[in-house]
């Protein structure tokens, strides 16, 4: 991987297109994400926002275009290798491991780091125990960061919706990402939880240096925390700029925001 120069964007999407049968979910998308920024993607339903996320994280195979992460093309990378690049994501419908505890979910976030060979795990050698402790230490720091301590050993299935969203965020953080995709992080959250989320996203950027791209409908969250906003419609970029600029763009208002 080539070192990132100051002018090169962290993630660059060029002329991306994604078709499902006859439907063009993404049509010639051009997008850039710069290191250390918080980018919000807004747009009406069916604009292709989640599809873009899914295309970049390789849930789908794109039909054309390039996805350059630090200069490397991701378009043909197998789905499970994306985490190794330092890209993490959350899901629109929470995809947590319901039968496991919060701690186990976070530990699974640490999966891409070494845990010993299979025979070492079978025998539970002291080396494996030490690696488990190290993994747990990392998970504990995420728990502390997100105030999840009261639920550390609770089963996810017993948690309220808002807490589950935070757990999913925590699990993504455990993978030590450089680039974090959030798919509608504020959906289903009450205003108080949304404000907390805004603080956390800000902390992610400031304290942990993580670049955040979020697909969002909640304009208050977007205005509070996003550096830049891209509005998508019909699979392509409609407008981009600062939150204020995009919110006042006439095309965006007619396509999405209304008056």
């Amino acid at each position, binding site marked *: 991987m080539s070192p990132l120069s100051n002018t090169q964007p962290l993630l660059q999407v060029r002329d991306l297109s994604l078709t499902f049968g006859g439907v063009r979910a993404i049509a010639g998308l051009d997008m850039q994400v710069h290191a250390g920024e918080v980018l919000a993607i807004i747009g009406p339903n069916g604009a292709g926002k989640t599809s873009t996320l899914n295309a970049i994280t390789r849930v789908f195979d794109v039909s054309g275009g390039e996805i350059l992460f630090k200069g490397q093309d991701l378009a043909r990378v197998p789905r499970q290798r994306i985490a190794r690049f330092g890209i993490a*994501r959350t*899901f629109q419908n929470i995809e*947590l491991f319901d*039968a496991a505890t919060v701690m186990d979910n976070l530990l699974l976030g640490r999966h891409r780091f070494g*845990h010993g060979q*299979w025979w070492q795990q079978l025998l*539970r050698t002291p080396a494996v125990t030490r690696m488990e402790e190290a993994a747990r230490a990392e998970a504990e720091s995420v728990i502390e960061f997100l105030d999840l301590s009261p639920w550390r050993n609770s089963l996810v299935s017993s948690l309220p919706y808002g807490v589950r969203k935070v757990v999913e965020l925590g699990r993504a953080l455990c993978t030590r990402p450089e680039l974090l995709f959030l798919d509608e992080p504020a959906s289903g959250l009450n205003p108080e939880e949304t404000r907390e989320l805004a603080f956390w996203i800000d902390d992610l950027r400031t304290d942990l240096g993580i670049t955040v791209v979020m697909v969002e409908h909640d304009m208050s969250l977007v205005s509070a925390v996003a550096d830049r906003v891209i509005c998508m419609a019909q699979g392509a970029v409609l407008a981009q700029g600062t939150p204020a600029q995009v919110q006042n763009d006439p095309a965006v208002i007619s396509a999405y925001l209304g008056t």
Partner: protein
Amino acid sequence: MRFDYHTRYRDSFKLFSHASERLLYGALIGALLLLPLVGSAFVLGELAYVFILCIASLGLMLLTGFTGQVSLGHAAFVAIGAYAHAWLMSKGAPMLVSIPLAGLITGFAGLLLGLPAIRVSGLYLAMVSMAFAIIVEQLIGQWSSVTGGFTGMAVEPARIGNWSLSSPAAFYYLCLLVLLAVFFALLNLLRSAIGRAFMGVRDSEAAAYSLGIHVQAVKISAFALSAGVTGIAGALIAHHLQYLTPDGFTLLLSLELVLMVVIGGLGSLRGALLGAVLISMLPLAISRIKPLLPGQMATQFGLEIFIFGLTLALFVLFEPNGLNGRWLKLRALLQSFPLYRRDTFKRQKRYMKSERYR
């Protein structure tokens, strides 16, 4: 009430973190080890068979309970393990080599099933595994040169070097030791990264992919490992049966194994053992009550099958978490006594959500 007082961080995720657990399980293992001193040959023989089924049940639990891959054809792996072991021993391989080798061969067969099986899931996988079992049963019957075909194949008695293990006590110890080894190995595996990966694949493949888990490799490994463990059980069953024929490994055996893991409680090794013990004890219990039934109803086979079905139905309807679920509820009751509330485990009404789009 029970309180955990841990002085080191690693105590919190130790296997037996509480003294009472260590005491209880230690006493159980001790009792099992000392049983041949007081038990009759019949009891030892029955228990050895129960241990073998426990191993097979652990194998299937690993696949279905922990990785979420349904298999209605695990009898095929028992058969492959049994025949492989019998064949290897007939070619002169020592038993201590032949049993692990049979496990490896069966594991390889599991890999072969796993490769196509990862492309399907749920119901379709259930059917693929069932079809696989039927095909294997037929193949065993057709491949007479190796397996003796439908007439069958004799198994050499168990021995290590010149020391025969065919006495009830010796065979009992063999089965018990293999069971303990397999059980603790799986226990360790499931507490570690690989085990967590299995469960991750079971609960959400999309999330597992996004965390860097190679979902397909995990599924194939689960198939291979599950088949291997079941193959080891098969090898031991060969000695128990002493004569192998293809109709000892029918769909009924596959469904019995599934009964064990479902009634035991999906997702727990303890459940696998409890389920195996219950299902293997059931025929014994049935033969005890048979004299009490009117003449025609005592036709052995029909009654057994009916009771199997009834037990499964009762568990599915009233205790979906199986025997393990009951165990956990009982434990919760004892641990939180006298603050236990009756509705702690009440289930909520749910509407059917289509799984066609899973």
